[in-house]
């Protein structure tokens, strides 16, 4: 309990620090610390799948994205709106305080035995042949959500690419990275093989324990971003067919298998019985690669 209160205090301090920070750099550094503590908080709550995702995305990829953005903006700041007046500010504060109280009350007033779906998941989990209940939910019971989510990532990549200037938009994504020397170049060569092993491990244990495709994909994306940032592996042009196929293959395969399920069992995204585990694994591998490529492209940003 003391541990939880200490952690909550730390998270609140960092969140307040982000909001009152004067420089963008400081705010981003605080935000990275916040992501890290949030991952620990998810661990305390016992939501280990979420903790892994937050560690990978919140503490890892976000840092790369936001620090690069802060750096670019410190050179060429963006237009700011005029700050709200004192009265508006007070009104906004009051509104947000009311919102906080309402959400807090909702948390405290939840019924003691909340109506959950845990029992139904437990009852039907054997059918999916996966030991990790969250993976069962993601791939079987709420497969449509997962499909839509991977589609959202593809859409996000398309949006980002579309923000590139008109001439030469099909070129490599992001700004061209200067070549690093010394320790960073060494790290960029040493870490990716190790990271890929870790990603494979996290993916594989995800079948029966917390872990799985999102977490593995975020690690893989980081392992692509590292040599890119060090300037030793320039990104391929957006127009490259292999890149486009990699990004789209996961969702496309998921839809194809879903249609197969519709033909065999009469329901879209239903897994034909007897082949659940191999089919789910194949789709998960394809989704992992697609999500990893999409996440990396998103962090690199549009061509500048």
């Amino acid at each position, binding site marked *: 309990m*003391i*541990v939880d209160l*200490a*952690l909550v*205090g*730390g998270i609140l*301090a*960092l969140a307040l*620090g982000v909001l009152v920070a004067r420089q963008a*750099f*400081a705010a981003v*550094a*605080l935000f*990275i*610390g916040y992501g*890290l*503590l949030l*991952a*620990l908080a998810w*661990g305390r709550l016992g939501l*280990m799948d979420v*903790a*892994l995702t937050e*560690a*990978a995305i919140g*503490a*890892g*990829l976000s*840092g*790369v994205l936001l*620090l*690069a953005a802060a*750096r670019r903006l410190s050179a060429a700041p963006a237009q700011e709106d005029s700050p709200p007046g004192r009265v508006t500010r007070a009104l906004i504060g009051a509104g947000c305080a009311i919102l906080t109280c309402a959400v807090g009350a909702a948390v405290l007033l939840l019924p003691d035995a909340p109506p959950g779906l845990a029992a139904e998941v437990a009852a039907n989990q054997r059918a999916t042949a996966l030991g990790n209940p969250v993976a069962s939910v993601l791939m079987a019971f709420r497969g449509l959500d997962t499909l839509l989510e991977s589609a959202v990532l593809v859409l996000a990549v398309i949006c980002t690419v579309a923000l590139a200037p008109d001439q030469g938009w099909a070129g490599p994504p992001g*700004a*061209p*990275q*200067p*070549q*690093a020397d010394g320790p*960073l170049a060494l*790290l960029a060569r040493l*870490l990716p093989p*190790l*990271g890929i092993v*870790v990603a494979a*491990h*996290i993916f594989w*244990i995800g079948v029966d*324990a*917390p*872990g799985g495709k999102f*977490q593995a994909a*975020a*690690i893989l994306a*980081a392992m692509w*971003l*590292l040599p890119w*940032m*060090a*300037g030793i592996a320039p990104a391929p042009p957006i127009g490259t067919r292999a890149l486009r196929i990699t990004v789209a293959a996961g969702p496309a395969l998921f839809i194809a298998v879903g249609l197969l399920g519709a033909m065999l069992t009469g329901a879209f995204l239903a897994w034909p019985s007897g082949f659940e585990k191999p089919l789910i694994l194949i789709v998960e591998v394809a989704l992992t690669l697609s999500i990893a490529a999409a996440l990396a492209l998103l962090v690199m940003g549009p061509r500048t």
Partner: protein
Amino acid sequence: MSSLLGVAAFAVLLTLLLGLVRVLRGPQAADRIAAAQLLGTTGIAALLLWGAAVGSATHTDLALTLAVLAPFATIAMVRKEPGE
């Protein structure tokens, strides 16, 4: 023994929270990023101790993920700028 390890995890977490002060105060960007990196390492240590206390391998996996990805903020900070 496991309760001892739990206490140890709590002690490490306390040093993590003290380190927050440096992230909050700065004054320089390098200070904040370096302190954030220390938060990562301390978090990893706390997770390892806590995982050993409750006998869970998942905590070790979480620490492993952090160990691979926590340095990325620092790397993004120290790399050469485009056009530098």
